[in-house]
């Protein structure tokens, strides 16, 4: 909402010396933020001049050399405008003048001295939508009455200042000069001035009005005869320009002017083309209407329309129809002032066009202003369009305009704000706002005027007191609440900290991905979730696996020549069953250098597996999980990948990216934390350590290559029993010394008893059993010596 200082001053007196910035700051303090506060015309050093002489430039086919009287001296100015001629009153920018286009300097133009510039309206910095072709092409011609040497901006009436407010959505009342006047009046303790609603009437209106919907609570129709269409007076045009609306002609301008004053949007119909009937109804599905902008619109049964009984003539609250538009030959006018359902208007406007009118309907209209707007139109049209106002008002009114009465105690006000305001302060603030207040036993009864539609409960009154008392005056108090321990689930933190300590960077990527990527990196069957109207195809679907995102992170960095990528992310994966589901997941991607030294070891499967194991062990799952071959997503290398199971239940995968996806050695892992954390490990309890020395034995088994280490270890563990406390692989051999389809794996076995020192004999019994079991069950041979 653009607020013109001159327009505002019509309705409330501002302290004389208050600057536009001070006013804007005061308004901010009561909750109305602004974007900018500045002069309408930002140009300096301008003066009215009189062209005394205008000769052709000796050295140019279009320039003129002029002598211009600026009151105290006569300047030599070279001018290129085609309309420059002797006798004109013009706007002169003196040397040193700052215009939006730059600074004016004295200089020589093709050998002739020029001491300033004669300006067009465009050069003053007015938005091009307010300018005619003439304004843009030639210097501006001032009237004969312009006084040489005076300020041309003042002469033009453009010596205004404008604050552009960013209002909150509850303050529909501030979308009017009158509303602003009440707000400003409360700041400076000034009364709002009366609006002139006087006019004469002739005859009696004859018009049929009907409403066939619940979405129009008030409709007023007023007939105006014999208007003269012409240019508006300067003050109307200038106030419209300052408010950001383009002047068109007196009749259209008055409808906009009154909307700005009262906040009530108006629509003027050419009565001769409309006929004598209006019926308001909901549009039929698929119904067509050509709107003012000459566009054909297809409507739905959620749009409110105005009809002449048969044909649709307007889209209520949003835009009029082309067929009944005011044109230069319009003689008779029907004024519509109505209130439409704000939700419906909001929907229609979103679809078709958001306008000054729809914005006001969306935020709500005070019915008293609807009546006032009609009267104000009559007043202005009779003054500035020579109109005859026809007597009588056709109306359908289902609004309630009774005043709201709200009670609130002084104690409640202070308890909510945390301050100590006095009774007198409360009464003063509410009275300044134009509310009626009475008080008894520290309880206030407040009558709220209908224009303040945002106020309906006592908390609203408390806010009004807070706004004008000064929210910035509220001091922090010592909040004393019972001591208690805050609760926080640290699982995510623990996982993050562990992975970071193992050299991974935490990534944070977007949950929205392309639809065709959502079933990648998983073997699960699920229904994915799309967005309604996504921003783009790339952000259409909620991810299920995080690995697609990490693949993107890898690609991004690789493209920037950053090849050592070790990242992880914790985030949600989404899918739909009977309801919408989301599961916390952990994913990692690793490639490039892991150990940083001169020889730098690159990431391989076993490093990634080690990281996963370290993490699971750290979380307390040691001994409860296995990492083994299984069904993995097709995006992984089928020979270099494994599944992670916890007590037989699959919780994740590890593997190298399939060669068709990446030629580089890129490894990934993903764990479903929802499933993992379902079985939380028990609390850490320290085990008793043996006081007795243990014994170690080494053995190497030669097995066929299709026998896995896990199978061997499983047999060793089972056969080793209670005394076997640790197994470690310390050597792997394939080569000339064994058959080519065989592998040798060497194990270091640790034996220990909690109660005694083991004898060689005791250990050998177990050790021999292990050897024979591995040999018998897996077809292994013990490898002896070299």
């Amino acid at each position, binding site marked *: 909402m653009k607020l013109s200082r001159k327009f505002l001053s019509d309705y409330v007196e501002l302290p004389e010396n208050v600057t536009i910035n001070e006013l804007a700051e005061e308004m*901010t303090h009561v909750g109305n933020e602004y974007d900018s506060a500045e002069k309408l015309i930002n140009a300096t050093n301008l003066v009215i001049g009189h062209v005394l002489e205008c000769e052709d430039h000796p050295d140019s086919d279009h320039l003129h050399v002029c002598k211009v009287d600026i009151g105290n001296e006569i300047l030599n100015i070279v001018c290129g405008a085609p309309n420059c001629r002797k006798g004109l009153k013009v706007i002169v920018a003196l040397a040193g003048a700052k215009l939006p286009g730059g600074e004016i300097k004295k200089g020589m133009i093709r050998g002739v001295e020029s001491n300033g510039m004669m300006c067009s309206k465009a050069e003053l910095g007015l938005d091009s939508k307010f300018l005619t072709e003439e304004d843009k092409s030639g210097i501006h011609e001032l009237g004969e009455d312009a006084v040489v040497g005076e300020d041309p901006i003042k002469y033009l009436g453009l010596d205004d200042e404008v604050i552009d407010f960013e209002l909150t959505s509850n303050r529909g009342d501030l979308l009017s000069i009158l509303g602003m006047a009440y707000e400003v009046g409360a700041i400076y303790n000034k009364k709002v001035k009366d609006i002139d609603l006087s006019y004469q009437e002739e005859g009696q209106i004859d018009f049929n009005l009907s409403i066939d919907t619940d979405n129009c609570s008030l409709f007023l129709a007023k007939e105006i005869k014999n208007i003269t269409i012409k240019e508006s007076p300067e003050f109307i045009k200038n106030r419209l320009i300052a408010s950001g609306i383009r002047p068109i002609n007196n009749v259209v301008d008055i409808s906009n002017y009154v909307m700005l004053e009262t906040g009530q949007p108006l629509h003027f119909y050419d009565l001769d083309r409309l006929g004598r009937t209006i019926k308001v109804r909901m549009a039929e599905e698929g119904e067509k209407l050509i709107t003012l902008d000459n566009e054909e619109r297809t409507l739905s049964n959620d749009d409110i329309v105005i009809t002449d009984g048969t044909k649709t003539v307007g889209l209520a609250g949003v835009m009029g129809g082309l067929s009944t538009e005011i044109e230069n030959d319009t003689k008779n006018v029907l004024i519509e002032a109505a209130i439409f359902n704000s939700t419906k208007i909001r929907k229609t406007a979103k679809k078709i066009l958001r306008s000054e009118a729809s914005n006001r309907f969306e935020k709500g209209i005070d019915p008293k202003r609807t009546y006032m707007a009609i009267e104000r139109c009559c007043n202005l049209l009779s003054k500035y369009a020579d109109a005859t106002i026809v007597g009588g008002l056709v109306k359908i009114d289902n609004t309630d305009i009774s005043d709201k009465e709200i009670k609130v105690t002084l104690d409640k006000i202070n308890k*909510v*704000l945390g301050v100590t305001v006095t009774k007198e302060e409360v009464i003063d603030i509410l009275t300044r706002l134009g509310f009626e207040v009475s008080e008894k036993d520290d309880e206030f009864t407040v009558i709220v005027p209908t224009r303040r539609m945002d106020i309906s409960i006592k908390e609203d009154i*408390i*806010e009004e007191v807070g*706004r004008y008392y000064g929210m910035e005056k509220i001091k*922090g108090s010592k909040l004393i609440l019972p001591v208690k321990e805050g609760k926080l689930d640290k699982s995510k933190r623990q996982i993050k900290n562990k992975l970071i300590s193992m050299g991974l960077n935490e990534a*944070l990527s977007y949950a929205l991905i392309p639809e065709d990527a959502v079933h990648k990196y998983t073997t699960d069957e699920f229904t994915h979730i799309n*967005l309604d109207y996504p921003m783009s195809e790339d952000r259409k679907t909620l991810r299920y696996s995080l690995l697609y995102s990490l693949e993107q992170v890898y690609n991004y960095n690789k493209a920037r020549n950053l090849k050592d990528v070790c990242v992880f992310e914790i985030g949600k994966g989404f899918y739909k069953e009977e309801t919408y589901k*989301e599961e916390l997941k952990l994913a990692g991607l690793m490639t490039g250098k892991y150990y940083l030294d001169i020889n730098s070891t690159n990431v391989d499967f076993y490093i990634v597996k080690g990281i996963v194991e370290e993490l699971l062990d750290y979380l307390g799952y040691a001994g409860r999980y296995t990492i083994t071959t299984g069904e993995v997503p097709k995006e992984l290398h089928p020979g270099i990948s494994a599944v992670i199971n916890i007590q037989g239940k699959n919780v994740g995968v590890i593997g190298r990216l399939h060669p068709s996806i990446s030629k580089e050695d890129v490894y990934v892992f993903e764990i479903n934390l929802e499933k993992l954390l379902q079985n939380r490990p028990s609390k850490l309890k320290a085990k008793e350590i043996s006081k007795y020395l243990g014994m170690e034995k080494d053995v190497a088994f030669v097995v066929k290559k299709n026998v896995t280490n896990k199978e061997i270890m499983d047999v060793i563990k089972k056969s080793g029993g209670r005394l076997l406390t640790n197994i470690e692989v310390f050597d792997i051999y394939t080569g000339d010394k064994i058959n080519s389809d065989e592998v040798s794996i060497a194990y270091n076995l640790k034996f220990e008893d909690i109660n005694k020192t083991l004898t060689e004999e005791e250990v050998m019994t177990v050790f021999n059993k292990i050897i024979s079991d591995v040999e018998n069950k897996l077809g292994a041979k013990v490898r002896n010596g070299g």
Partner: protein
Amino acid sequence: MKEKVELLKNELIEKINNVKSIKDLNDLKAEYMGKTGIITELQSGIKDVPNEEKKEYGMNVNILKVAFNENYESKFKLLEEEEVNKKIESERIDVTLPSKKIRQGSKHPMTRIQEELEDLFVSMGYDVYDGPEIETDENCFQKLNLPLGHPARDAQDTFYLENEYEAFLLRSQTSTGQVRVMEANKEKGPIRIVCPGKVYRRDDDATHSHQFMQMEGLVIEENVSLADLKSTLEIFCKKLLGEKTEVRFRPSFFPFTEPSVEVDVTCFKCGGKGCPLCKQTGWIEVLGAGMVHPNVLAMCGYDPEKYQGFAFGVGLDRFAMFRYGITDIRTIYGNDLRFLNQFTKGDELDEIK
């Protein structure tokens, strides 16, 4: 005998002195002290010495023995030292060569901010609540006093799920946590929570991302006021932006609070003097807050006549940007390693005075 001992003594001292290695020294030991060594032989020869000379003979052999051992010990130490020194010399390394280590991991700046705030609020007795990201329109809007068609919904252009317009959505604010915790609290007693998490809105530019992070705070008690909210936010803003930070309230409007305030802090760049960052005002808007609207309390099962509360919503991305001097929000979600690797450095060490 005496001369012979003297001769032998000088001879063995000379031999020991001339030895060049521990091995040679040990060979010498064998020569003198071994089973058939010179001194051992002399010692066993005592049996052939007449009784009256035995004492003197024994003393002389002992002199030899002591002389050998003393010289052997000192020589051994000397040689050992030499050998260690030689070994040290041969093992000398260039300590300026690159170290061996695994690569450094880093915590994402958003996590750092989130954890710091969680810790702060947990220390003040707040529970940390993490709700779902897919929400109902009811929890995200309606129960927060934003009925269908409310114009304030425009401020949060929401992502609805396919075929779920005005039914299911990606939460556009963590205020959903308020609703969930209030409704779940069967006793309808006091509440103190913060809800940090991801939120989504249809927005993408240098200062807005369609996915970002918020933290909602909520306190419900019989007597908490805007002044209590202010002190809480003062602690929070000072913690994140520095001890000198001041907090200012400005009236505003949010449908779920009444009264509502915008919260400004003194510009941390210029300290409040005025600079381009704060547009010369000295203040920067950082969050929205207010007293929980009685309709919200009632819709979530609380008696607005008995309870009142305050709520605040903080954009964590904005704080991360302030804190780490990040100028484009897209950097936060870009996962460029050159960015992430900077966060291997820990936060400044706290100084408690």
